């Protein structure tokens, strides 16, 4: 079982959501974040004055999937969230030990398949 944590452009979240749905992935947690990558943001030159916008808004999407779905999921996100320009974001794949459904306290059966 893996957690896919994707940090993407905010304007791409609707596309990613739709694409994941089409591939049968429904559950997710998203939140708005601020971040920067290796370029340390965007430098703007305005009237001779340089302003460095060092933290840009992104959306973080978290999804937990069985190991067998990991590649498909990463592939869907990476294709849909891509513009080809600097600032498209990152995808992290993190191992997850267990998933418990709060309502029933059962260990989530849909996540059991290894």
């Amino acid at each position, binding site marked *: 079982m893996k957690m896919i944590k994707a940090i993407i452009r905010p*304007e*791409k979240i*609707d*596309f990613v959501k739709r694409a994941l749905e089409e591939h049968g992935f429904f559950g997710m947690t998203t939140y708005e974040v601020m971040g920067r990558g290796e370029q340390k943001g*965007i430098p*703007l030159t*305005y009237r001779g004055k340089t*302003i460095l*916008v060092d933290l*840009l*808004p992104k959306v973080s999407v978290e999804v937990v999937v069985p190991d067998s779905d990991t590649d498909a999921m990463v592939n869907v996100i990476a294709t849909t969230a891509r513009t080809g320009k600097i600032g498209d974001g990152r995808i992290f794949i993190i191992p997850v030990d267990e998933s418990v459904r709060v309502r029933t306290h059962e260990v989530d059966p849909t996540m059991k398949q290894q």
Partner: protein
Amino acid sequence: MALDTGTTAWLLAATALVMLMTPGVGFFYGGLVRRKNFISMVALAFIAFALVSIQWVLIGYSLAFGQDIGGFIGNLQYIGLQGVGMDPGEGTYPPLLFMAFQLVFAAIAMAIVTSGMAERVRLSAFVVFTLLWTTLVYDPLAHWALGGGWAMQLGGLDFAGGTVVHISSGFAALAVALVIGKRTGFGEYSLEPHNIPMTLLGAALLWFGWFGFNAGSALAANGIAANAFVVTNTSAAAGALAWLCASWLSGKPSSLGMVTGAIAGLVAITPAAGYVTPLASIVIGAMAGYICYRAMLFRINRKLDESLDAWAVHGVGGLWGAIATGIFAIAAVSGYSGLIEGNVNQFLANVAGALAALIYAFVVSYVLALVVDRTIGLRVSEEEEYVGLDISQHGERA
């Protein structure tokens, strides 16, 4: 005539009420854009207010209200407010106060135009465009309809500046939007309003200020002012409910739709406020809510990024108001009859005035926007638009 203290006191208060509408437009629009452009939207309204305040004192008032030249524009007799004094002369209030009352109208018209350039205008270009627009579009139109120009001589009725402020700014916003182009991502992903309560607050300021706008335009503290006050509120309420119902029928009753409908009702009653009865204002307001709602849907279907619907609400709503004034004016209110009492000429004079203002405002705004675009560049760079105008133009974050 001597100075009337009641009238003077009311006009002072009304001027201050209308002043509040310009930042009101800023907050109304500010809530509708994405958070990264919130400061920009409010700042544009304030900057418009400041620029027009100076321009009006230096030259604008004279161009609009100076001695008539060929029905088109005023002369330069009042340049720098020369000869605009405290002594009421023939009137009942100081000309200086009338100048200030007209100033706040000129300022709000400019603030409304920012709808068409929201989230993508370069600030320096906006400053230049504002000075050109208020001088070459607003001032002549104000002269035509309010300052003794041809539309006034023709007998067109425009109680509080429906053609001058609303038709002109609405169609100017459309012209600017066509020149500056769509926002990045328009039609691809959702560009959702970031703060609807802020827009509701902006609408509250507008509704409140509009009492000064319309009832103040009676230029007296009298019965006509009271009539204008009542029809203004009634029309706003009818517009709010009409749009609310229209959006309810196709989904949820949206609060944003409701206040937009209220603004549509306020716009439409503006030229009519001193000439129609409260019952007629229910019809005018409700029709305005419905017509502007359809205009907005039309705008969206045509994929026009006139971003915050100044065209649908102020342009189309203003046009309906001018026509409605020609229809519903009743002699019992202030001596003018419209179509409803068989006066076809009044109706035609109103339609002519409105159409001329519409064409003039659209064409000249389009040309001015094009000139500014080709010389300075109306639009920010792609990176500046991406990070938002708050940071790229103002170096601030909301």
